[in-house]
């Protein structure tokens, strides 16, 4: 059963017992006029209406799964960073909040220290969110008000859009476009406009330099990124995530292990991992918001929930980037039986994210000229070499394999 069929039956149930009666009741309230509620009830009864309702459910479920993952990713980042840095990280628990209230009220503490603050700290993220919402939204007096508000909208909406684009498995997917991965990359490529406009509109030199760096970085990394993906597309002959993952299961390697794309296209995998790091702007490639020289880069002038949503959107982009890497190179949701494929997919994504967190907290940031040099001089030729290897595999290897029967290595 796929997500869509589940949502379809759910939609049928809700339409029949919940929505149609409500709309009919509304239509009956004002009989003299032609009431739109009645026609909506009629439309919900049709096939198209039920499909639309089912898609709405599917998109919402995928979105909620993505947002839950976001909290987990942020929590993971905080905890792993803390452990790397020899400290404990957030440990706030619900009990400690209750007892903090007692403490503030001046009542005698009825707890022991050790028992009190032993939570795993995940509600720290919620508390931070509440804090950000309650902060004042400051717009600089001399900023360009229109673009200053447009920037976050472009950036955050294009990032949140990513959440419903990638499938967690072939049955758990909100979207099933044949051009699936290209839609993801298109959504990725909208965000730099938001960065540039918000950086420019802040009327601040640091913000503007941050925006310019973001655009320069995008230009240097978008091309090797897409070229390294092109190898996978060539091999699978499709942009569809489902086809790509199925193609990776076809060949076998040593001891009958599936030959995921990471093995024949190792160069492409390296190029892709570096480029996607630059694309989602994580250390060591977080030049647009290099806090050492540009204060906070293009987010310098933002405050409150806008700043918080910028941060959240960056984590969403990170999560989406790791998901794309998993689909392209790590066999997607494939894995041994007892664990469901969705969980396999999330395990692989989280492994990549943990790897990124380790990178983030153990290397310094590199410089603008170095990042451009790396992108244009090293990664671009490497991605072309990767495409060459793939073409050799696709075109020449079958020719030879007809003459000599090789053991099934490739």
């Amino acid at each position, binding site marked *: 059963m796929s997500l869509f069929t589940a949502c379809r039956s759910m939609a049928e149930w809700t339409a029949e017992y919940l929505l149609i009666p409500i709309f009919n009741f509304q239509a009956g309230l004002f009989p003299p006029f032609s009431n739109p509620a009645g026609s909506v009830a009629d439309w919900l009864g049709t096939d198209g209406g039920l499909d639309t309702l089912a898609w709405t459910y599917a998109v919402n479920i995928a979105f909620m799964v993505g947002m839950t993952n976001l909290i987990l990713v942020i929590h993971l980042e905080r905890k792993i960073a803390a452990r790397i840095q020899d400290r404990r990280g957030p440990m706030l628990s619900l009990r400690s909040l209750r007892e903090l209230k007692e403490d503030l009220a001046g009542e005698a503490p009825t707890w022991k220290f050790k028992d009190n603050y032993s939570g795993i700290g995940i509600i720290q993220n919620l508390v931070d969110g509440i804090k950000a919402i309650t902060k004042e939204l400051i717009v600089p007096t001399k900023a*360009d008000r229109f673009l200053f508000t*447009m920037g976050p909208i472009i950036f955050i909406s294009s990032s949140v859009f990513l959440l419903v684009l990638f499938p967690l498995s072939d049955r758990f997917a909100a979207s099933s476009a044949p*051009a699936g991965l290209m839609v993801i990359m298109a*959504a990725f*490529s*909208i965000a730099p406009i938001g960065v*540039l406009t918000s950086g*420019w*509109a802040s009327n601040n030199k640091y913000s503007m330099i941050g925006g310019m760096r973001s655009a320069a970085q*995008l230009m240097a990394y978008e091309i090797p990124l897409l070229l390294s993906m092109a190898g996978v597309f060539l091999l699978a002959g499709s942009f569809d995530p489902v086809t790509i993952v199925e193609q990776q299961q076809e060949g076998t390697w040593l001891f009958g292990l599936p030959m995921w794309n990471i093995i024949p296209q190792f160069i492409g995998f390296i190029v892709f991992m570096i480029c996607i790091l630059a694309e989602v702007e994580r250390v060591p490639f977080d030049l647009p918001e290099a806090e050492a020289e540009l204060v906070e880069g293009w987010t310098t002038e933002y405050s409150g929930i806008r700043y918080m949503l910028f941060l959240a959107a960056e984590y969403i982009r990170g999560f989406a980037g790791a998901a794309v890497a998993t689909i392209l190179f790590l066999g997607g949701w494939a894995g041994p039986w007892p664990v469901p494929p969705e969980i396999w997919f999330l395990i692989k994504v989280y492994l990549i994210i943990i790897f990124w967190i380790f990178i983030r907290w153990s290397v310094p940031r590199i410089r603008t000229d170095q990042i451009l040099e790396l992108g244009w001089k090293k990664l671009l030729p490497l991605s072309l070499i990767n495409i060459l290897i793939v073409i050799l595999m696709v075109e020449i290897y079958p020719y030879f394999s007809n003459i000599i029967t090789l053991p099934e290595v490739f």
Partner: protein
Amino acid sequence: MDLVLLIFWFLASLILASAWAVVNGNDIVHSVVWLATVFLLTACLFIIADAEFLAVIQVLVYVGAISVVIIFGIMLTKRTLKGGEDV
């Protein structure tokens, strides 16, 4: 009226309004952002016409390249920081 046709007229009028804003904008960066809106809405038109791949490529190529246009807009035009010195 057909729903698809309704959406088409809605999108088309938005495209025309954005295009008008591109031409009549005071500020070059404003114009470029409206241009990006034009491209995005055109991609939506393609989706209505069942040309999804074309829509994706439209976003990837045209909208993605808008940031380059913004850079040229910033770098090649002289702009005064509001209430401040020349940039």
